[in-house]
Each structure stands twice: as C-alpha cells, then as structure tokens.
C-alpha cells in the first residue's frame, strides 16, 4: 500500500514538469524502475541499500582501492617494465634502499639521498605551513566574524586566491619574486637592495610556505568562520553577565566550541600540505637545488620524469608517505577526541 502511495507521489511530481521534460523523465523513471524491481524481488528490500551504494563502491574500488593495492605490489617489485607480470618480485628491497643510511640526519650519507632530502623538506614545510595556515585563518576568521566595515568585501578578498589554479598562483608569485620582479622593483624604489629571493635556501622555503598560505588561507578561514557563526550568541551574553573580558570569551567560550572545526582544518591542511606538489614545482622547481623539493616531487621524478623509470622505488616512497600521513591523521583524530571528551 505504501509502495503504491510513493509511486503516485512520484507521478504527481512528474506531472508538474513541463511537457518536454515530462515524457523523458517518465521514461527514465520507468526504465530505472524496470531494472530495480527484479533486483529488489531477488535480494529483498532490506538489502537494497547495498545495491544503491554499489556504484559508488565500484568507483572507489576501481579508482582508489585497486590502485592502492597495485601500488603495494609495485613497491615489492623491481626493474623498469610497466606491467606487473613483467616485473621481478624483490620483496622489501626497495624499502631497504630507501632506508639505507649511515646517518639519517645527513642525507648525503644515504643511498637515496634525494628521498631523505624530500622527507626533511616535507617535515619543515608541513610544520611551518600548517601552523601558519591554522593561525592566520583563525585570526582572519575572528576579524571577519566581527561587525567591521565592508565585511562582505573582505571575505571575498580573502577567498579569491582559493579560486585560482595553483599553477597560476605560482606563476604570479614567480613574477613577483624573481630577481627582476615586482618585489625587488619596489625595494629598489624605496632605496633598498634587491635580492635573489628564491635562490637563498631559507628565503625559498619561506616564500614557498608564504605563497601556499596566501593561496589556501581563504578556504580554511571560511570553514572557521562557519564554525564561529555556529556558536550560540547566548553563551557570549552569559559570559559577559559573568564579567568575562574579550580574552576570557575567546579562551573559555570560542576556543572550546571551535575546537572540532579547528581539528577539521588541521587534518585537511595537513593532508594538503603533505600532498603539495604543483605550486612548488612551478614556483621553484624544488630548488634551489633540492631545498624545496618535497617527497611527492621525489616520487614523481623517480617514477615518471627520469628516462629509466623506477616505479618500484617510487611506489615504496609513496607507501612511506601514505603510512606517515595515516599515522599523523589518526593521531590528530585521537587528540581531537580526547580534547572534546575533556
């Protein structure tokens, strides 16, 4: 009886559509119904949920799970052939190569020195970039959450770089930072001395972090802004009645309630930072030398860019990266859960 009622509702909805769309939609609904009815009869209504999520699971399986398993297999193989069946099984040799180091703090003493340079650069980049993104996004969100003049305009301004492609962002900043670029032009007009910003290893890392913070901050600001706006204003009224000042409001009302959103920002920015490739690739090419070359670039170069493509080594490095990221994320989530329980 309920089924007939639902069908009648569907037909009533279709009847509201224009004469052109109506027959097409009717045809589509009838066709889907024709396919799913026999399936439902066979598996039963309780299991139809699985049928509905099957397409998504298939996509996940084909495009995510299967490549992950394949990557795992490639990491255990050697040689340069593309197809798995042509590749000799080498067990953990690729991992042994990556971890063959006399002194882990001295990349030059490692067999795969570029891998370890990538590891150290990635750690430095992630620490600075994620801290900066969380801090500046929070400050910006707090400011934009206040009743300031042209608040809508400023929200757009901060969000605008998010709309740009990472390659465009990198090219813009490359023009700004190159020796004959805009920044040096301004410095010279002001009487200062121009500098090769991207050639100095420390400055290069600073600018790489700065540019990515500039490009991505708007997105995280938006998330934090949504978090701030979901805090009930009554809590601030109550705290002001209790005599709390601005800092106490922030410490005892805003931060505890914003913490779940902060963890979302932290996890998302961490994953994005570890995966960073395109922007740095265009801005510095990983240079000067390898000073801004992150692990993802090592994986790309080893597996695809070199004439003799070492897929096995590249797959092993990507597994190390994936596992590290998983551990970090789980750690964060655990900390997040603990803090919300507290």
């Amino acid at each position: 009886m309920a089924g007939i009622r639902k069908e009648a509702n569907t037909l009533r909805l279709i009847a509201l559509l224009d004469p052109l769309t109506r027959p097409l939609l009717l045809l589509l609904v009838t066709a889907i119904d024709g396919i799913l009815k026999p399936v439902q009869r066979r598996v039963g209504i309780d299991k139809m949920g699985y049928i509905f999520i099957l397409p998504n699971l298939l996509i996940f399986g084909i495009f995510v799970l299967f490549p992950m398993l394949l990557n795992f297999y490639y990491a255990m193989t050697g040689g340069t052939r593309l197809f798995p069946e042509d590749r000799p099984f080498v067990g953990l040799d690729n991992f042994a190569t990556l971890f063959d180091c006399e002194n882990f703090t001295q990349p030059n003493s490692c067999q795969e020195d570029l891998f370890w340079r990538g590891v150290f650069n990635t750690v430095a980049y992630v620490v600075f970039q994620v801290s900066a993104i969380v801090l500046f996004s929070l400050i910006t969100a707090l400011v934009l959450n206040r009743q300031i003049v042209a608040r809508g305009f400023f929200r757009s301004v901060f969000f605008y770089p998010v709309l740009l492609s990472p390659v465009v962002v990198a090219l813009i900043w490359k023009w700004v930072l190159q020796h004959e670029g805009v920044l040096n032009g301004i410095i010279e007009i002001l009487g200062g001395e121009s500098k090769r910003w991207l050639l100095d290893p420390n400055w290069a890392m600073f600018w790489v972090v700065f540019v990515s913070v500039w490009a991505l901050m708007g997105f995280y600001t938006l998330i934090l802004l949504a978090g701030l706006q979901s805090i009930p204003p009554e809590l601030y009224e109550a705290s002001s009645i209790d005599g709390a000042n601005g800092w106490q409001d922030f410490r005892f009302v805003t931060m505890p309630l914003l913490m779940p959103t902060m963890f979302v920002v932290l996890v998302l920015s961490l994953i994005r930072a570890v995966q960073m490739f395109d922007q740095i690739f265009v801005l510095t090419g990983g240079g000067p030398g390898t000073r801004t070359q992150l692990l993802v670039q090592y994986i790309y170069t080893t597996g695809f860019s070199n004439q003799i493509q070492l897929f096995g080594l590249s797959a092993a490095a990507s597994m190390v990266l994936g596992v590290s990221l998983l551990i970090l994320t789980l750690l964060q989530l655990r900390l997040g859960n603990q803090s919300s329980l507290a």
Partner: protein
Amino acid sequence: MRRILSILLILAVLLAALPALSQDTVELRIRWYDDGNEGEVLRDLLDQFEAENPDIRVEIDTVPYRAILENLPLDLAAGEGPDMARVTDLGGLAEYYLDMTPYLSDPAYWEENFGPFLNWKRLPGDDSSIPGYMTQLTITGPFINRTLFEQAGIEVPSDMSASVTWDEWAAAANAVAEALEIPYPMAMDRSGHRFAGPAISSGAMYFDDMGHPTVMDEGFRDMAERFVNWHLDGTMHPEMWPLSEGYAGANEEFANAELVFYMSGSWQVGQFSEQIGDAFDWQTVPNPCGPGGCTGMPGGAALVGIAATEHPEEVARVMEYLTSQEVLGEFAARTLFIPAHAGLSASGVDFDTDLQLAKDSLGVFVGQVGTLEQVAFDLQAYGFNRAVFDATRDRLTQAMVGEMTVDEAIARIQDDIDTALAEQG
C-alpha cells in the same frame, strides 16, 4: 511495457555510444611537439598528402615537450601509443618503434640518405631496421649578442682566433656584461646534453673501456668544476639551473638582450628569427675549445612509426611522402632546420628566410658538423644517454647551491647512472 521501455532506453544509449560503423578512410595520429613553426609546416605538407591520398587522414596531436619525454614512454609501454611520434629520446624508446622495411617501396633510399642516423633509433645489435627519419639534425653551440660586444667596445673572441677557449669566452662575456650592466654574461640550457659538448671538449670520455657510461675522469671533473664556479661567481645565469626542474632555456633573456653568450643549439635559429629578427645582431659562434677538442653535441628529433599501430602500411606511405627529397627540402627550408638527409646535405637547402643573421647562423652550425668528436656521436647514439644527461643536470645543480661538493656530485652522477642501468637490466 516497462521492460520494453527499459530495453529500448538501453539500446538507445548503446547505439549513441557506438562509433560510426563504416569508415572509408584510415585515420593516423602523430604525437608531436613544437620548437617553432614546424607543426604548422607539417600540417601544410600533410594537407597536400591527404589531397593526393584520400584514403588516409593524419591527425597531429601537439603536446608539450615534457609530455613527449614523460607520458609517451608510458603510453608506449601500455600499448596505447599513437601511430607515429616525434621523439628526441631516440634510442631509449627503440623497442617500441615500427620496422617499416617490409612496407617501404625503396628501403635502399632510406639507408642511402638517412644511414648514419638510423643507428640512433635502433636497439643494440640491430643494424637493419628502418624505424623513422630525423625531422632535423641539431648541433649544440653558442649564440652571442654581437651588438652588445660592439656597444661595449670589446672584440668578439672568435673574430680574433679560430679556437677560443671557454675561459676566454667567459672573460669576454663578463667584460661586456660589466661594461653595459647586462644582468647575465652567460647561460647554458639546463640540460646534461648541452653540458656534454663542453665536457668532451675538456677531455671527458663518457665511456670506459667496456663501453659502460662513466663520468669519473679529469675532463668531466674539470668542466663540472668550472661550470659550478661560474654559477657561484655570477658568470652564468644564477637562477636558471638552481631554480628549475627538468629542462630550462634562456631564450627570453637572450631575446631581451639581457644575455651576452647563450649555449644552446641550432633549433633556436627559427625561434630567434621570429622573436628577435634583426632587432640586434645575434650570431652563432664555433664551439669553444679545450684539450678534448672544440665540440658540441649532435642530436635532433625523429619522426618514428610505432610498432603497435594497426596501420603499418599507411604509416609507411606517410613516411615515404614526408621523406621524399622535395617534401623534406620544403620542410627544412620553411622551419630553418638542418636536414639529416644526405641528398639535401649535398644539394643544400635554400632556407626560406630573408634574414641574413639566420642564414649565417645556420651556416656556422652546418660547418660545426666536421668538428664534432667521435665520443659526441657515440654518446648521442647511446640508448640510455638521458640517464647520464639527467643525472649530470640534477647533481651539478646540487653542487651549485652547496648541497654537495663537485666531487660528491660526480660520484652521485655515477651512482645514479649505475643504479638506473642495473634496474634496466
């Protein structure tokens, strides 16, 4: 009724997805990259071919050069490649080339006219296959901005001596840059291939007695150290090598008269004719000399047939058309490329330009063929030369920024080559 409708809908979708059932013409695809106007010229020539051969249609898929280096090998390994491709990794991809010999009407023509270059595209031990032809022969060598020398009142070293050393050129370029406040005295393409010419001139042998690639000799070390030091003292463009990944060129700087001496190659002549024209006097000078000679590196790009093609006969027909002396002559004339064709080399090419600077430059490059050292030819013919070139480029860059010493960089280059070749098996 519902079931019938469902079946009808599925059939409609399937029919829409089906390709045309009948095809009279064979479509061939060429994976191509452009240095200058050669894609445009090729299209013109193929239009004429298609008019005479209505059963074949040729599509040119123009991609960035990086895609030829990085994506094409993967496509070929997966059996997903095009019918033909323009490649520069000549020997490295040889296993995927089509041997067109059985499909060619006159294989002897190919041996006769492309003979010396066919080996570059063959696997070791193969001395008979015909996989394609060189779209151009390239020779590496330096360009100078003569106008800057004149403005600075400094003699061009090659005007005074037939064999100028790298140090003499560096001193002259520095003097010009200093006199005119030009930002970059010298630059070299970020490429191990470009570095190889100067290294061989300094005495690098590149192969040991067993024919295994090696960089562990004094000649290589000498040029490596000099090259790294030039980056540190500002003689060489300080940002180009350290701040790039893969290939990088200084075309823009040279065209903007911000660079005195630019080590690149003959393929730039067409571009400079377009970009610079006669805005200033640019010219090619002979390769600088050292104890190992005064050599550049030969090279070039080849159009090859791909073994996985379903239409080998049609591929051979297109190739025969493109390699006829008349068509190849037109291609060379309009692109300002040096042809790698014995007949054309003998008859000469009337390059399609009014710019005397371009004609003179091409003349110098053609004249350089005789000065190339045998090791330069051997290195170019070596199938895994990119493993040598890429390691050289990346490790010397690390030495330039102080991540390692020159000796450590050379040891790493050797390690990288050995590791890669061991994996290759």
